[in-house]
């Protein structure tokens, strides 16, 4: 089998339990054509395993079109989520300010890849699972606030005039502010600075260098830069 897959193993270990199943699928799918070729080759028909029950079963699975179609659907539903998982499960950078945007992106991607009427029911089921698990648990003002304070993510939204999302994120930020800062004077000051930040006003936000660095700077670097 390795000969046909270019020496690669089919299983790949993953950080979390259920992700492993999906990574296996991905790897299997990648080797779809060589696998199909293997099971019609003389090398297979001449092998004694071809006559065992297990061998016949695997042969039937690999040559079944329905099987590969379903695997394809399954990957369409899972791959965008695995990308999010890799970011939140990795230690490379803090994921807080990215996670909400990543998740929205993943949902869009899943919706697009199932955008034909015959897949509508399946899509609805998948979206129902995602919404239920995500909205009820992770839809937290803290994530919205983190996104609000991430200039590389917020300012593209402002430029697109996406007032609804910006307003929603500002709401999250204000929620968090109200909860964390009891002193009214301090919270008024923070709020005023946040408005400067949003509109790119004031000395710290309006200068050219600050604007140029909007995309490249992480929120944390920005804070050090400002205070």
């Amino acid at each position, binding site marked *: *089998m390795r000969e046909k897959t270019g020496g690669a193993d*089919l*299983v790949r270990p993953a*950080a*979390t*339990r*259920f*992700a492993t*199943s*999906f990574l*296996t*699928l991905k790897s*299997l799918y990648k080797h779809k054509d060589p*696998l199909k070729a293997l099971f019609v080759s003389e090398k297979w028909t001449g*092998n004694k*395993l071809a006559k065992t029950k*297990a*061998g016949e*079963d*695997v042969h039937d*699975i*690999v040559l079944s079109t329905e*099987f590969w179609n*379903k*695997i394809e*659907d*399954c990957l369409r*539903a*899972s791959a965008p*989520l*695995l990308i*999010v*998982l890799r970011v*939140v*499960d990795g*230690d490379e950078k*803090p*994921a807080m300010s990215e*996670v909400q945007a990543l998740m929205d992106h993943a949902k869009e991607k899943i919706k697009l890849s199932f955008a034909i009427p015959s897949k509508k029911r*399946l899509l609805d*089921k*998948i979206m129902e*699972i*995602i919404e239920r*698990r*995500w909205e009820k*648990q*992770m839809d*937290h*003002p*803290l*994530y919205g606030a983190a996104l609000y304070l991430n200039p590389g993510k917020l300012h593209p939204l402002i430029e697109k005039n996406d007032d609804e999302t910006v307003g929603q994120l500002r709401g999250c930020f204000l929620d*968090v502010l109200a*909860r*964390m800062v*009891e002193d009214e004077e301090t919270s008024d000051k923070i709020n005023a600075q946040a408005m400067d930040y949003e509109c790119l006003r004031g000395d710290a936000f309006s200068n050219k260098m600050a604007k140029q660095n909007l995309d490249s700077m992480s929120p*944390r670097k920005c804070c050090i830069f400002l205070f």
Partner: protein
Amino acid sequence: MSDGWSDRRGRHLINFLVNSPEGTYFLESVDASSEVHDANMLANLLEKKVDDIGKDKVVQVVTDNGANFKAAGKLLMERIPTIFWSPCAAHCLDLMLEEIGNLEAFKKHIARAKACDNFHL
């Protein structure tokens, strides 16, 4: 951050870790085998940890998605109004993938894929 697990001897351990922009550090592991893990007990434990670190230094408390931890998180947010509790995003995604994998449309085929995978020439 906290995460509960059971070791091979059946002891229930709860690990506590802290994370800041500088990195993640292991704080301590508590053997909670002898106690009932209800929301109240977990909330007490978390509240004590937050107090040890300093309320003003803690922004968010992250736990796994067990119902007891969820209830404890809500209690904690009532007790210490300046902090946020949320379940672990990675765990959340993992549960999502599990549920998608269990959908009727996919379940059988994933099992078949695994059968192929276990078959070695």
